[in-house]
């Protein structure tokens, strides 16, 4: 099952030759040392080496590769930048991996009708950069946006700080071109938001590469707001901060972003960026409102009042755009900075109803104490999306066991609160065992039937997301360094 042991590719030579013919020799990796790089993604606990890695540059090449895989009855799967935190790109059972990072063209930008057409390997931030000066941007802004691809974002339905107000990836995808698991090119949706028929483009989003390989994406462009106010709320207790979060949402204010960072992460950030965070505070909130300039000061004042009422020590305001950018940079690098705190870390991605953040935070800390695991926190607080980060030393097997147990208990607590085990990172292989807790047998059966409509032979990314009979229940050992957020 774990392909990492074999040194030579076990695929038939004829298939490899065919792949080389389709892609060209320089776009096919067969040597084990080259393929090793692709044995895991941002989720490093489980590893499996693909038998061959190909770098297609066109949709037709992808179709030809998939047809060949079908003829040789070989599994295959797509990969973008490999920043998945759920093991979405793990090639279970080996097979052919299609890495789409050479398909990086932004093919069209249409401002009048507010859409762009991109190839799947376009790195998220490139699109917003290409739009600089036009008054538009691409709204989904995962913290990994400097590396992850739009194809990967579509597959995982990525979120980011600003998806609180603007919506996650699925709210910004108008259509996709894809290659079916049997090698047929098709298109769902397009520039127009109301295509005739089922919303199958919507179904493709978040399907974690298990329905078809996305080869082109029509995305919505979002108008830049006229004005923005960014605030930093400083709190002497995490409870006060989490209460402020729930009071802001409860007051019917939907900020553009509402993020929480607790003391330990703040200290790590300060070491890395010297932003000037108050190191004696217990938590900070980064709160941003945007929209019509004429209304922003009033919104800002209302938020300041709420924070102060909840016990904020002070609420600072970003003085200028540079200051604001710095603040966001610090926030988005949170996980890089945490690397300073411990040799290894694992992040969970649970969600609770957003007004239950205070109770959830306490629960997390209790669980940390119970298992004697240090936990630091950075939350997409406005959506109720928590990211507790567990710090440990992977050389100590007992710590690893406790980390896994604590993680499981945190996610269970999210479910008990009526939430979800994943807000943005996906199920992949990591959380497959939780699917049975979130969904009934019927639910999973119907999901499997949807998959078989798209992927009848289950050759496309097998054993992901759904705990089907054949799924290899990979045992967990050795969580190594995992960045997240």
């Amino acid at each position, binding site marked *: 099952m774990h392909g990492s042991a074999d040194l030579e590719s076990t695929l038939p030579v004829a298939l490899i030759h065919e792949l080389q013919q389709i892609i060209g020799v320089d776009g096919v990796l067969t040597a084990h040392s080259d393929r090793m790089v692709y044995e895991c993604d941002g989720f490093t606990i489980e590893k499996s080496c693909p038998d061959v890695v190909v770098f297609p540059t066109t949709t037709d090449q992808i179709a030809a590769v998939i047809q060949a895989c079908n003829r040789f009855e070989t599994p295959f799967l797509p990969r973008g930048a490999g920043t998945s935190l759920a093991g979405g790109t793990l090639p279970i059972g080996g097979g052919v991996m299609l890495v789409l990072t050479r398909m990086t063209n932004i093919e069209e930008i249409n401002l009048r009708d507010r859409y762009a057409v991109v190839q799947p390997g376009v790195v998220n931030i490139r699109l917003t950069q290409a739009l600089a000066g036009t008054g538009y941007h691409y709204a989904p802004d995962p913290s990994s946006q400097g590396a992850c691809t739009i194809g990967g974002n579509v597959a995982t339905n990525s979120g980011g700080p600003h998806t609180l107000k603007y919506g996650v990836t699925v709210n910004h995808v108008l259509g996709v071109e894809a290659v079916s698991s049997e090698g047929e090119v098709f298109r769902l949706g397009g*520039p127009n938001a*109301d295509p*005739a028929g089922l919303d199958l483009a919507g179904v493709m989003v*978040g399907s974690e590469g298990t329905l078809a390989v996305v080869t082109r994406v029509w995305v919505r462009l979002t108008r830049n707001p006229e004005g923005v106010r960014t605030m930093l709320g400083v709190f002497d207790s995490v409870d006060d901060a989490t209460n402020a979060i729930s009071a802001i949402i409860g007051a019917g204010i939907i900020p553009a972003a509402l993020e929480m960072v607790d003391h330990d992460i703040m200290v790590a950030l300060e070491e890395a960026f010297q932003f000037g965070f108050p190191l004696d505070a217990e938590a900070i909130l980064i709160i941003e409102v945007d929209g019509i300039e004429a209304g922003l000061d009033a919104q800002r004042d209302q938020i300041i009042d709420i924070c102060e009422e909840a016990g904020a020590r002070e609420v600072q305001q970003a003085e200028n755009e540079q200051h604001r950018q710095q603040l966001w940079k610090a926030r988005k690098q949170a996980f890089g900075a945490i690397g300073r705190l411990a040799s290894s870390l694992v992040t969970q991605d649970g969600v609770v109803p957003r007004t239950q953040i205070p109770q959830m935070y306490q629960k997390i800390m209790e669980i940390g104490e119970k298992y004697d695991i240090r936990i630091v926190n950075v939350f997409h607080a406005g*959506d109720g999306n928590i990211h507790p980060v567990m710090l440990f030393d992977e050389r100590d097997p007992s710590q690893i066991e406790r980390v896994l147990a604590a993680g499981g208990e945190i996610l269970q607590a999210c479910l008990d609160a009526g939430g979800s085990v994943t807000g943005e990172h996906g199920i992949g292989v990591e959380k497959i065992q939780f699917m049975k807790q*979130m969904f009934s047998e*019927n639910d999973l059966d119907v*999901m499997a039937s949807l998959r078989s409509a798209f992927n009848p032979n289950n050759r496309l990314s097998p054993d992901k997301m759904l705990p089907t009979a054949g799924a290899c229940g990979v045992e967990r050992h050795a969580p190594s360094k995992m960045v997240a957020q």
Partner: protein
Amino acid sequence: MQSLQPGTVEELAGLVEQAYEQSVPMYPLGGQTALHYGLPAKTDGWGISTEKLNRVIDFPVKDLTLTVETGITIQALADMLANEGLMLPLDVPQQSQATLGGVIATNCNGPRRFGYGTVRDYVIGIQAVNGKGQLFHGGGRVVKNVAGYDFCKLLTGSMGTLGIISQATVKLKPVPEEAVTVAVSLDDGATVENCIAMLMESPTVPVAVELLYGARWSEYAGDPNRRYTLAVQLAGTESEITWGQQRLADDLKACGAPGAFALSSEAHVALWQQIQEFPAAEHELTIQVKTVSSGAVPVIEKCTETDPQCTIQSDIGNGVVTVGFEEMPETGISGLVVSQLGPLATVYHGHVETLRCPAPEDLTLGTMWGQLSGPQWLHNRVKEQFDPRGLLNPGRFVYQ
């Protein structure tokens, strides 16, 4: 046709299972305001009504979410939300009858989609019974969630052909402090296009941008001698609106449309009510063209050329053009839809649907739904998985 009213989801699932075993066609019924939408039923079967499935399951007001059974009427839902200062900003005709299930099944959207989005942006959890009687759910009750396939998207707009939707969780929005309408009369398509292009980028961020044509709208027109009325809805705080109104009037003038004025609050309410009900109005023939925004003016001009007496209501920022004809155009439906408007819509990445016509039995897949987006085989396969015996709303939707 026999109509059955299950009182619980379990009863609903039981009924469907029974129908499945006996291969009886099933017609999901909500408020029955849009049963003529889609190809008409050709086989007898059971009507399965959601009338008794109208309970509120969970309304955590401060989380801005609501979980309800789908037989609840849009009016009942709106009233309940308004009490808490919240709304589900979808514009639905005949609200006292239309149900949430029907709205989701038909993907019913109106003018405020420009600012607030569409049904698919609001449904975050869904429960349904598929054609085999399996009760299943997708999504959940939290606003951010990527576990499992997105059945919310799959079922939105599925026209009751993949499952009978029994329960849904929706995201809510706070009701804005105020809303106003700025209107202006316009004469030619080129000026309309200028204004729309400006509005797409306007910092005033309108919640709705409507273009209206025809005598029906004359009381809202500033100048009845001009062809078109452009109505822009702004919503927000008082200071935002005061600023926005002035800014809009200036920008419209700069686009060649002087004379913009704000409607009185009574006229504002009446106008949006009329716009909301328009797709349900009794015309001999009602069609809807859905293109990208820049396709709307060419489509509108084509329609007014075909029949100057027609009435048009267009969510023009979104490229949706709804046209009511008092008389069947000489070309007949297929001439109009397939030969004239279809190719034009295609140029603008869109298609044409027929909302109402005198002889629905003559409609074909092409004249009813326009050009299918996505492969036929994939639609058929999905349908086979969810409803292997083809019992849910047989013949109504795009499968063949």
